[in-house]
């Protein structure tokens, strides 16, 4: 486990170094670049709030991917699950007139159910017909995309624009005044707290419960799980459903928290970023939380860097890409570490030998 923390940290360091090289090569000063990048994310309460808000959907999508990974599944359909979960929550928020607390809880439930529904299909296909979940969950992304493309203008159409839904009323928004005020008008919202609670719950399920034990056993060795009498198919379907449900709540945070309506024609990129977040977070819930915050910082700081310098925002994207690359090739980093340790040990034994010879 410790090893994985080192690998993730090294991936970040290498990514930042490579970004510095990129900046220098394109004729910019890396130190100024980075100082504006981090200032942009952390300079004042509003920017900190925005960084946290940017990170919120990433926490959910990362958690969703990580949960699936831990149970032996690759959920690559998080984008569609986010979208459909967000859509279900928006539909609830726009059509029910209830006190804010009750409405928000109903919306979170709707988001969870919507996301879970979208993920159960690949889960079922995997369990019953051994269809690989990567293929079927990617296809579900496009089904979600076109469903929203049709359903939003048809049922939730806004007053002026065909391409987005009506804005959610205040009672259906995760934004609350005390948070907005505390962070000087930032769009930070209650989604962050839901995300932290989700991290704790997922960590608990995976590490402490018999349910998590079953899911992991099925993920690690389906045959042994079957031998032990664990309901293998049920586990696969359930773990896809939970993974999708987490993504669905992420959709609520995205469309009813950071934004205030849902647009058509966009597959939320946060869904795919979730894979990177999970990878950098070594698939552990706390790791996901930290890596999502870091990604949130890069995403929210890059605009400021772009405004204050000539450095294109694509540099920030490149840094993220390079970090992902290093996290994904963690085996290389591990080898590097081992090589260093061995070299050190060799040097030590060599000097001891010399000592003996003398």
């Amino acid at each position: 486990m410790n090893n994985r923390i080192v690998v993730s940290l090294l991936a970040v360091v290498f990514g930042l170094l490579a970004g510095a090289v990129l900046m220098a090569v394109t004729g910019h000063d890396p130190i100024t670049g980075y100082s504006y990048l981090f200032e942009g994310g952390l300079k004042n309460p509003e920017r900190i709030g925005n960084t946290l808000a940017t990170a919120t959907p990433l926490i959910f999508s990362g958690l969703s991917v990580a949960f699936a990974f831990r149970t032996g599944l690759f959920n690559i359909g998080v984008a569609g699950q986010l979208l459909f979960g967000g859509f279900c929550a928006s539909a609830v928020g726009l059509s029910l007139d209830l006190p804010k607390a009750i409405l928000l809880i109903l919306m979170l439930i709707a988001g969870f159910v919507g996301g879970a529904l979208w993920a159960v299909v690949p889960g079922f296909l995997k369990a019953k017909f051994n269809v690989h979940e990567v293929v079927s969950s990617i296809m579900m992304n496009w089904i979600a995309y076109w469903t929203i493309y049709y359903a939003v203008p048809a049922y939730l159409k806004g007053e002026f624009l065909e391409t987005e839904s009506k804005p959610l009323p205040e009672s259906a928004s995760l934004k609350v005044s005390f948070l907005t005020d505390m962070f000087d008008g930032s769009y930070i919202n209650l989604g962050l707290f839901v995300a932290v609670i989700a991290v704790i719950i997922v960590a608990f399920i995976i590490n402490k419960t018999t349910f998590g034990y079953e899911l992991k056993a099925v993920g690690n060795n389906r045959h042994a799980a079957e031998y032990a009498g664990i309901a293998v198919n049920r586990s696969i379907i359930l773990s896809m459903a939970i993974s999708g449900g987490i993504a669905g709540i992420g959709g609520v945070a995205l469309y009813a928290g950071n934004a205030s309506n849902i647009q058509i024609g966009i597959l939320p990129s946060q869904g795919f970023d979730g894979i990177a977040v999970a990878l950098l977070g070594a698939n552990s819930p706390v790791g996901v939380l930290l890596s999502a915050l870091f990604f949130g910082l890069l995403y929210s700081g890059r605009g400021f860097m772009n405004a204050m310098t000539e450095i294109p925002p694509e540099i920030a994207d490149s840094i993220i890409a390079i970090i992902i690359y290093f996290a994904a090739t963690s085996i290389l980093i591990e080898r590097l570490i081992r090589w260093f340790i061995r070299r050190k040990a060799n040097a030590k034994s060599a000097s001891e030998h010399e000592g003996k010879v003398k």
Partner: protein
Amino acid sequence: MEYAVEMLNIRKEFTGIVANDDITLRLKRGEVHALLGENGAGKSTLMSILFGMYQADQGVIKVNGKEVRIANPNVANELGIGMVHQHFKLVEDFTVTENIIMGIEPRKWFGLGIDIQKASKKIEELSKRYGLNVDPHAKVEDISVGMQQRVEILKTLYRNADVLILDEPTAVLTPQEIDELGRIMKNLIAEGKSIIIITHKLKEIKSFADRCTVIRRGKTIGTVDVAPTSEADMAEMMVGRRVSFKVDKIASVPREVVLKVESLSVKNAKKVLGLKDFSIEVRAGEIVGIAGVEGNGQSDLIEAITGLRKVESGNIVLNGQDITGHSIRDRIESGIGHIPEDRQKRGLVLDYTLAENIVLEVYYREPYSRKGILQNSKIKQYANEILESYDVRSGEGASSVARSLSGGNQQKAIIGREIERDPILLIAVQPTRGLDVGSIEYIHKRLINHRDNGKAVLLVSLELQEIMNISDRIAVVNQGELIGVVQASETTENEIGLMMAGVKKEEGA
């Protein structure tokens, strides 16, 4: 220049375990040298060092009298050392030739093409010279396990190996194939090769080897000439105490029927009937052995009883209750224990710790979990008890990842887990496969002990000796059909052998 290979004072340490501690092995040119030791004694580590897969922490390796450093298997190949691994490293849908030349393909057309013809001609020559009888054009997936092993041997010969390391070569072979292997080794020796054979089967050492080096817990115990040394002496060197080969057991006292299988038919993985109209009874207080050549329906029978495979027709009755359609967990709950044939596929979640594996079938029950929450201290305590009483050796006790254990220790952990649940029917499939005599003796005792506690035991084994020694009654299968059931005390190896070949008792008599 008398020695082909010398490994002097080798030491190798892994985190938590000294695998090799001052081991010395000298291989004379033109001899078959057995390396004997218990599971986890350090045999595989030592050979991996010789083959360049690990580096020794201390010690010297000499090949043909010259000190060498074997950094990786390629260096070993260049030095004329070849290894045949226990688990073959072959590409199933390549031909024999393609497998053998992989990595050193002879080229034609300026390096653009592979000269298969030249290669297969050389392979054919080698095969003839050493009496291997391998068809270079056959696909690996179409040939028998014994033949695949010969392909592995050819691989090393093709690379001009003078020293062959055979890692547990007989573990996967039928008795006839084992004889064949003995003949092949004689041919190899006659052509000037030297062989190290890793094994813990004493009978084979007696019939194949010239000398034998025994190691125990990472240390050399000694090297002996095989001819004047008795099996019992070698076993004592290996285990450190006298081992009894005769299994002591009192006559069985069979009581009520525990398992009743009635005209069971089961389809196998190839979707044809692997088990046909099969009936058998196992009573409390007896051990019934299923004898047969591998792949004659034993696995289908066991999988049907344990619920891993669907039944086509017939019934399975446990303790008077029909469990034919029951779930796997229901069957476990009603008292079936199962030591599975393939410990890594079925028996263990290799990436789970030993503690987690020990509770694989009981994790959801108190005290191992309470209201859905795992009780880790209770789990660990239970695991430690089992690991201790079954002498499972590992780096970090119950916290060791199952993958890190040697095969024998993995097996002991599974056996401990199953027997400690005290099932009314214990199904043991190849329970001692790949284990050393000390462990075998111990496991046999536990099985008989289980019987003496009034439980039923169903034993499946490909080792006829094991079946004959342990069982009270023996059922013989051939091509999915029951050939007959005989009393173990009244039969002979010859009679069982004939039945295994499909000759019914009446016809034979």
